[in-house]
C-alpha cells in the first residue's frame, strides 16, 4: 500500500480500533507488561496496553521502565515473537486409538479461535515470512502451522524506539513493518497512521471512517523511521556470510564462545525463526490412546543430533557453531536469505550476554 493511502486514528480513538477488531469475532491480543517483560496477551481495553513503557535491553539484560510518554508502542520487543502463534511451543499433531481392530489415527482438528494480534514488529513479520518458507513448502505444507496462520490477523506497528540490542536496519527487516501484515500502524505523538496490507485489513480501516493522513503526519512518520534506523548501533554485515562462516569451521573463536555459552537454548526459544521441534508420544495411562506431540526443540540440547545413542555434536563448541552457521549460512541455501531478522532477542535473553553481532565480527577478523 502506498503511504498516501494512510488514514489517521487519533490517540483517543484507539479503543475504537480494538472494538472494531473484536466485533469481527476475533480474540484480540496485544502487548501487556507482565513479570517485568512485554508479552502478548488478550486485551479488551486500550488501557491494557503498556502506555509510556520503555524496554532497556543490553547483552544478558532486559528491564522495563515507566515514562510519562502517552505512547503505547515506545518499546522495541519482548521475549516472545509472533512465532508461538503459528508454530506452537506444544502442538498435538494427531491422536491414535488402539482397539481389537487395530490402530486408528486421527489428525488434530480442534477449533481455533480467530485471533488478531496488535504490535507485531518488522523483524517478526520478516521472521514470519521465513517461517512460512520453511513450514509451507510446495506440496509439503505443515497442517498445524497452516491452521494457525489461517486464523491470524496481524496488526504490525512500525518500530520507533529500537533497543540497544536491535540491528534490523542492517538485516533490512525494519524498523518499519514490511509485507505480511493485514494492517500496519505508525505511532505519532497525536495518534496513529493506519495502512492496509490485505483486503481484510482494508475493510477494517474503511469501517473506521478515518481522515487521510496529512502531509505533516506522513513526514513525521518518515522522520521517525529514519531516527529509529540511525539509533541502531549494532549491525551484521550486509553480505551473504555463508561461505565466510563455513570456511571458518575450525576458527579458534568458536572455542572462546563455547567457554561462555551454557547451551541453555534461550536464544533458540526467543529467536523468531528457529524452527526445530521434537516429536513425543503422550500415551494415556491405560495405553489405549496416545497423542503425538510436537515440542519446540533446540540445537543446543545434547540429544538434538543423536545418532545411535551418541550426538553428532557432542560439545558446546559444535552446537553453537551449528546454530550460528545455520542461522547466517545454511539458511541462504535453504530459503534464499539469512535466518536472522535483527530482533536482538538472542542477545538480551542470553544469560551470559553472548552477542551474535560481536561474535560474527570476531569470527570474520583475520587470525594471525
Amino acid at each position, binding site marked *: 500500500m502506498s503511504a498516501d493511502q494512510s488514514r489517521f486514528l487519533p490517540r483517543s480513538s484507539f479503543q475504537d480500533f480494538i472494538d472494531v477488531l473484536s466485533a469481527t469475532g476475533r480474540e484480540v491480543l496485544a502487548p501487556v507488561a507482565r513479570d517485568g517483560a512485554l508479552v502478548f496477551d488478550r486485551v479488551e481495553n486500550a488501557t491494557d496496553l503498556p502506555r509510556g513503557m520503555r524496554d532497556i535491553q543490553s547483552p544478558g539484560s532486559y528491564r522495563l521502565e515507566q515514562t510519562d510518554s502517552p505512547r503505547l508502542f515506545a518499546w522495541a520487543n519482548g521475549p516472545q515473537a509472533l512465532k508461538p502463534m503459528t508454530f506452537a511451543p506444544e502442538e498435538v499433531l*494427531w491422536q491414535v486409538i488402539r482397539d481389537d481392530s487395530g490402530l486408528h489415527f486421527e*489428525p488434530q482438528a480442534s477449533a481455533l479461535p480467530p485471533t488478531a494480534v496488535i504490535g507485531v514488529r518488522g523483524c517478526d513479520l520478516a521472521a514470519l515470512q521465513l517461517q512460512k518458507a520453511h513450514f509451507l513448502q510446495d506440496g509439503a505444507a505443515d497442517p498445524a502451522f497452516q491452521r494457525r496462520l489461517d486464523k491470524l490477523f496481524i496488526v504490525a506497528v512500525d518500530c520507533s524506539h529500537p533497543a540497544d540490542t536491535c540491528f534490523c536496519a542492517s538485516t533490512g527487516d525494519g524498523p518499519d513493518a514490511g509485507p505480511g501484515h493485514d494492517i500496519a500502524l505508525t505511532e505519532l505523538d497525536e495518534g496513529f497512521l493506519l495502512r492496509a496490507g490485505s483486503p481484510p485489513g482494508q475493510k477494517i480501516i474503511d469501517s473506521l471512517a478515518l481522515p487521510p493522513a496529512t502531509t505533516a503526519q506522513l513526514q513525521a512518520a518518515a522522520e521517525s523511521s529514519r531516527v529509529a534506523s540511525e539509533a541502531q548501533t549494532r549491525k551484521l554485515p550486509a553480505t551473504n556470510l*555463508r561461505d565466510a562462516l563455513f570456511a571458518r569451521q575450525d576458527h579458534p573463536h568458536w572455542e572462546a564462545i563455547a567457554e561462555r555459552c551454557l547451551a541453555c537454548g534461550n536464544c533458540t526459544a526467543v529467536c523468531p525463526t528457529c524452527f*526445530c521441534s*521434537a516429536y513425543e508420544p503422550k500415551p494415556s495411562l491405560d495405553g489405549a490412546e*496416545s497423542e503425538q506431540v510436537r515440542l519446540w526443540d533446540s*540445537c543446543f540440547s545434547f540429544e538434538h543430533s543423536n545418532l545411535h545413542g551418541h550426538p553428532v555434536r557432542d560439545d558446546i563448541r559444535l552446537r553453537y557453531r551449528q546454530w550460528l552457521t*545455520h542461522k547466517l549460512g*545454511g539458511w541462504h541455501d535453504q530459503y534464499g536469505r539469512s535466518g536472522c531478522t535483527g530482533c536482538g532477542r538472542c542477545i538480551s535473553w542470553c544469560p551470559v550476554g553472548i552477542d551474535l553481532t560481536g561474535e560474527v565480527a570476531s569470527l570474520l577478523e583475520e587470525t594471525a
Partner: protein
Amino acid sequence: MNGHSTLPLPVQVKERIQESADIFTLRLQYPDLAGDQRYEFAPGQFNMLYLHGVGEVAISIVSDPQDERLFDHTIRAVGRVTRGMSQLKEGDWVGVRGPFGVGWPLAEAEGKDVVIITGGLGCAPVVAVINYIFRRRERFGQVTIMQGVKHRDDLIWRERYDQWAQQPDTTVALAADNPEQDQSLFSGNVVQLFDRVDLQPDNAVAMLCGPEIMMKYAIEALMQRGFPDTRLWVSMERNMQCGNGLCGHCQMGPLFVCRDGPVFRYDRIAEWFFRKGF
C-alpha cells in the same frame, strides 16, 4: 502434501523374521489407501515407523517396490523404539508415515557397471537396489557387491549373497573383522576388499551405505581408482523425527538429510561429509 507423510497409516505385521540375535525383519501389509492409490516407494527411501505409545523411528525399506503383497523393514534393536518393535508379533499393528526422501539413482545406473559397498546393517537400504538390479539384469553391466561386518554373526542374508554370487557378471566379496573360521569371509574390513576385486571406473557408479568412517575410506579408495565424485552415491543417517525437513534434527550443513537425501551424490555433500559436528 500426501496425507500419509503427516498422519500415520495403520499397517499390520504379517510376518516377523529373526535375522540375527538383535536384527529382525517386519514384513508389513501395504496400507489401504483411498481410491485407486497404491503405496509406492523407491529403493533407498525410508518410512517413519510408529510403535503405539512409544514413538517413531526412521527405517529404510528393504523390499523390492514391485513386491505386491508385503513391504519389509529390517531393524536392529538398539533404542527404546526399536527394542519395543522387536517384541511385535504377527497380527500386531504399527503406524507408517512415508515414504520419505530421495532414493538410489537407478535410472542413472542403467547401462553402467554398479559397485555396491556396504558395512554392517548398512546393507539393508541397498538390498532393495540389488534385488531391483537382478530383476532387470540385462539393463546393468558388471555388478560388484562388497559387504563388511564386524562379526560373522552380523552377516545376515547369507543365502542371498550366495545367490547373487551365482549371477552372471557379478562379484560378491564379503569381509568380517572376526570371521570365526569361516573360510568364505575375508578377514579384515570392507576397504581391504578393494585388493580382491577388479573395478573399472570408466562406466560405473558406486553406491555406498554404512558407517561414515567406512564410507570415507571406501570413497578414497574409489577415487584413487579413478571414480569421479559425481558417480559416487552415499546413503546418510542422521537423527530423523519428522521426515519432511521440518523438525531440523537431521541437518548436515544446509541439507536436510531426510528430504534432500538420504541418498546423496557425493560431490553434493563432500563439504560436510565426515566433518565433525555436521
